[in-house]
């Protein structure tokens, strides 16, 4: 037994150190990107003015730009990236499908259907501008329900269809079906509602009111805590449901917990920032490459940080530092995410039904 103990401690700290080192690097990266995102934008502000704006309250234009716009936007970017990536990670594990993610499987569409019901379904008195306080929670809850409903349907189908590409196509069908429903709703809605909805679909990180940002932060924190609670369950689910059940996992409850968690995170982000593509599917793979592990006790915090970093980077790129024009952030995330997704597809073509 002595030799066994020796071996057990001989090389495990090495991998532990690699993890710690990587987490250190990630945290530094996130902080640097956060600072960079605040310092650079379409209006060029001198570094000294940025610092002054952050630490004094002189009511200058710079202070307004920094404190009311850039700072909340940077925080939103991090939160959105972290939340989408974390929900993507969990979906990939639960569906045992490397192509799973909130946007590809139609979960984001489901969330947007919920939003459409709130904005287009109610009277013209509700617009994105007038939604406040309780209204934000209604919007978010509708989004959660829409995301959860699609997730539930996909789950039922994936228990019958094992092929990941088939499920992917079904997800695309769902998205198309939902946009058809939304188009019908748009057709029957009045001009004000329509305008409010169209503005929402454009998606942006910078349009959140402080109240909305609070709702987003609370929801995403709840989701992140739920994911941490699910760590052990997610690890068991890696082996598939039969094995997970055979080692004592309550599969039905685990699924419910994980679906609730992903619906909350993907739904909240979609409710306030519109559909943001490819972060949810690509970042978990980036994290796996980085940490070279399948253990969720490392992947969950890892994905959280990587997702935040990638989204901050996308936001910085979309500002086109040094110029005055701004790119839609959705295009930037797509251009970052798509190569990763293609790489995963190429790597997995040998066993398309397996994770």
């Amino acid at each position: 037994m002595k030799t066994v103990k020796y071996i057990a401690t001989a090389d495990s700290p090495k991998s532990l150190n690699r993890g710690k080192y990587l987490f250190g690097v990630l945290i530094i990266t996130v902080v640097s990107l956060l600072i960079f995102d605040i310092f650079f934008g379409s209006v060029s502000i001198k570094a000294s003015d940025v610092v002054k704006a952050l630490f004094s309250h002189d009511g200058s234009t710079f202070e307004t730009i920094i404190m009311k716009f850039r700072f909340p936007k940077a925080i939103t970017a991090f939160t959105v990236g972290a939340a989408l990536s974390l929900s993507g990670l969990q979906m990939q594990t639960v569906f045992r499908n490397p192509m799973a993610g909130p946007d590809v499987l139609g979960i984001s569409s489901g969330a947007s259907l919920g939003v459409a019901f709130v904005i287009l379904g109610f009277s013209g008195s509700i617009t994105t501008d007038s939604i406040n306080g309780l209204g934000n929670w209604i919007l978010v809850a509708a989004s959660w329900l829409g995301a959860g409903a699609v997730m539930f349907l996909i789950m039922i189908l994936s228990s019958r269809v094992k092929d990941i590409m088939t499920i992917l196509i079904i997800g695309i069908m769902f998205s198309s079906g939902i946009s058809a429903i939304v188009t019908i709703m748009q057709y029957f809605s009045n001009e004000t509602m329509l305008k409010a909805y169209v503005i929402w679909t454009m998606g942006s990180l910078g349009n959140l009111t402080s109240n909305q940002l609070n709702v987003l932060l609370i929801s995403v924190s709840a989701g992140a805590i739920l994911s941490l609670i699910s760590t052990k369950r997610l690890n068991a689910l890696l082996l598939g449901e039969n094995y997970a059940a055979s080692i004592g996992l309550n599969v039905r409850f685990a699924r419910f917990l994980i679906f609730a968690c992903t619906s909350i995170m993907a739904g909240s982000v979609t409710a306030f920032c519109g559909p943001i593509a490819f972060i949810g599917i690509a970042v978990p793979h980036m994290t796996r490459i980085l940490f070279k592990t399948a253990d969720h006790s490392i992947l969950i915090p890892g994905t959280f940080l990587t997702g935040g970093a990638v989204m901050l980077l996308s936001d910085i790129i979309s500002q086109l530092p040094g110029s005055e024009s701004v790119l839609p952030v959705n295009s930037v995330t797509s251009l970052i995410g798509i190569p990763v997704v293609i790489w995963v597809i190429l790597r997995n073509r040998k066993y398309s039904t397996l994770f």
Partner: protein
Amino acid sequence: MNSKQILSLDSLKIGYVSGNQKSVLLPPLTATANTGELVAVIGRNGIGKSTLLRTLTGIQESLGGEVFFAGKDMRDYSRTELAQKVGYISTEIVKVHNMTVHDLVALGRFPHTNWIGKITSTDDEKIMDAIEKTSMLAFRNKFISELSDGERQKAMIARILAQDTDIMVMDEPTAFLDIGSKYEIMNLLHVLSQKSEKTIIFSTHDLHMAISQSDKVWLILDNQLLEGAPEDLMIEGAFDHLFESSSVHFNSENGTFSFRGENRGSLYVEGDGLIKYWTKEAITRAGFSLSDEITKPYIKVNMGNKNKWQFVSLNSVEEFYSIYELVCRLQKEDFRSI
């Protein structure tokens, strides 16, 4: 004997529920297994072996009857307690990227760890012990996607060893393996049942291996489950039921198969040693039966510095220098009339 009994099935009904419809696969099954026994589950494809094994593990609901683990009804165990009592390996191949053998084996500790899955020093010892017993130490930090089929199966076995259950249920653990890995896994199961007192219930299609290696056989037939030492079942001629309608014949004398093809008459083989044994095998394969008394014609084998076979008929003696040549010659013959 009864004090050692760890598993018993009492009129267990297995099958599927779809909607309100229950479809029971087999008549109620009754069987037992003792501590440290290697039990082979044998039956034709699709008869319900996998369903039985899944029902035993608690993954699938039973449709009636009872299963007792150590004298306690399976339904009185909680999920976690059950997972501490019985482990399971299915035919499903686990291919997870970036998962090391150590990670996989550590998952076996699932029913023993706390809510977040913290690995204590006891867990670590059990994990390392399991890896060592399956001789996977050298592969500990390898990714399971890099392993061969045989190595991966050993890693899976290490995982249920770490789960620390009295009973291990395995669905065709040697399927898809090359012959070397097959025997290695079988040997491992044998050692685990003997030394670690694990009761191993495994299904297999390799009848020869099941008969020579297992302590007990559960033979599932369409109308009943027969249990006993493989030799008991052999004496009863139970295995013959497996091949009732086919042209395969099971020889209860030596536990091998033969094809019930056309019988082309009987032949006597004169000679001794290894060469005689293999000559007999070849002649049987060619469709002749072996005779204990001298026949005309007959075969004479000579071992010398050059092996020689003689085909002695009434008025001639033909000589051959390999079994292949001999069998080619015999293909033309039919001795039923003689």
